[in-house]
């Protein structure tokens, strides 16, 4: 049986050893092994937007009879459907399809913004990026289009976004 006296050299050495081992476990896994999040020759394209689609139907003028039925303070002549169109998206990279999908409007009444976030790891270098969107359910084709040749540096992030005040689709 080992004497548990703290002055016993064997006890001191053993304790130092165990504390050292504990420290090594903490230290090693606090920085090692390295995690390679993205290979050095790759870049990242992020498709991300938060965008209100157009109303699903046309606005119309209320008839005088309809207006008469409403309370005086509610008599707004123009009425529009509350529901927004989903945003349809198609992204091609160098002529090959990268993503195709649809972002529905948020909210119980489907009157909120359509949001989307996707990340694509692509080889660094020059690419032809083609993005097509439809924000109006009354139009069959894509009504927002942008096609551009971009050069991505290794580890660079390129964001594909859409905003009305940016003139539609833009790359950043």
């Amino acid at each position, binding site marked *: 049986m080992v004497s548990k006296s703290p002055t016993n050299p064997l006890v001191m050495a053993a304790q130092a050893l165990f504390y050292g081992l504990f420290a090594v476990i*903490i230290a090693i*896994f606090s920085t090692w092994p390295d995690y390679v999040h993205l290979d050095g020759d790759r870049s990242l394209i992020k498709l991300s937007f938060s965008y209100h689609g157009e109303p699903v139907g046309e606005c119309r003028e209320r008839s005088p009879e309809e207006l008469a039925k409403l309370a005086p303070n509610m008599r707004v002549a123009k009425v529009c459907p509350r529901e927004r169109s989903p945003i349809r998206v198609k992204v091609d990279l160098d002529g090959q399809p990268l993503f195709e999908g649809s972002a529905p409007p948020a909210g119980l009444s489907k009157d909120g*913004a359509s949001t989307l976030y996707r990340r694509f790891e692509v080889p660094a270098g020059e690419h032809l990026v083609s993005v097509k969107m439809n924000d109006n359910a009354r139009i069959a084709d894509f009504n927002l289009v942008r096609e551009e040749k971009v050069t991505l540096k290794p580890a660079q992030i390129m964001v594909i976004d859409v905003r009305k005040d940016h003139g539609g689709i833009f790359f950043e």
Partner: protein
Amino acid sequence: MDSIRQGGLALLQRIESFFDAFFGAAGNPWRHLGALGFHFLWIALATGIYLFIVLDTGIEDVHTSIEYYTHEQWWLGGILRSLHRYSADGLVVVMLLHILREFLYGRFHGFHWYSWITGVPTVWLVYASGIGGYWLVWDQLGLFSAVASAEWFDWLPIFSTPATRNFLPGVLTDRFFSLLVFLHIGIPLTLMLALWVHIQRISQADVFPSRALALGTFVMLLVLAFVKPTVSHGKADLSVVPTVLHIDWHYLFIHPLMYLTSPAGLWLIAGGATLLLLALPLLPHKKQGPIAVVNPPNCNGCRRCFVDCPYGAIAMLPHPDKPGHELARVLPELCASCGICAGACPSSTPFRSVEQLVTGIDMPQQPVGALRQDMERRIAALSGPVKIAVFGCECAARVGAVEDQGTAVMNLMCTGLLPPSFVEYALRSGADGVLVTGCREGSCAYRFGTQWTEQRLSGEREPHLRPGVPAERLRVAWADRHEMSDLKAALDVFRENLKNLGADEMRLRPYTPRRIAKHG
């Protein structure tokens, strides 16, 4: 699953016994993992105060301010930062070991359910606290963690706008860092509240490690801070993806796991693990025995059971008939059915002349009166040159295996149920020696059974063994379930010692109770 758990427990107890040899039970880190967790948390909180003072929360300044105190003020800010980081890492390590240990000891069902269930949210809070700390540094690692966390939470339909959009170029503002600081203080404070809830159903919770263990681990962290000071990655750049990262796997392993699977996959893993932990108390398990029962005529309101109960399951209420007196009352939902209260009751002394020994607080499944009868019968039946009475514990080394014609075995629910006067009674009833065994300190299924028994027998705790009892005729040999051979060896040595002691040397005067003398 139970056989795997038992196998793991045997291995763990061997490790704990090994560490006992060098640290002692009080300083053995394996036996105080919860207390060590608190210790690491205190260090992280204390060092965090200084780091909060010197941190500049501006988006452009946060990294610069951290770099300043890491490199220019390394002797204070740098060391404190490293202590902050490594104590947080240590907290995760001991927390995970604590969960594993409590699982192996089976402390997740029955009366343990409350501590187990309330412990589960603390795991989330520890990780939330730690991961938020990495964001604050706002280096490439912090950016990576922030984006990965946002991508993970975006999978849940809780944000009207994806949280990841906050990390697109040009979106972040200084307010984000003010929010982060608020969260990095608020979540640890919530963690402390959760820990307070976690320990509510245990009395005298082990939240402070022994001085030696606290000092040892602190020096360990300090040395680590000097040898391998914590440094940042390069400043976060929202237009670039961090490629190779020196990741802190203690906390940030969830991010590579998510990229290896998917956000949904990580939710499945994390949610599944959480549900599994929460469901463990529902799995079939051994039914808990009847709870302690107070016998008011024999309770004098001394409070010893109240003080000794490991789970705060006893309340002292005003005596209904005796003004100024108190009466013990058992709180059924907290009682663990361990019997430690019966061992603490001064009315449990077997020297009482009553025919039917009824004590102030007792266990229906192993009443003190029945224990006295059993002991008298077994000692009377002993033969051979050396007669030994052994008091053991159901949870420890199986004492039944050492029973023979010279050895009477009394198997208790917990050694803490043993009133110390039983030792003297056994010696006066014909036993040449008494051996008390049970779980090692820290292994006790009911927390304090071993500790209280040891203190009662050494006279440090009431009710204590009378000083007239010769120490040569009492042997205490703690042995966990796997240490049967150690128990047998201790018993053999004790028997030899008693043989050498001689029949009349250091022997107490025999005592025959009147009720036995009268009835034979």
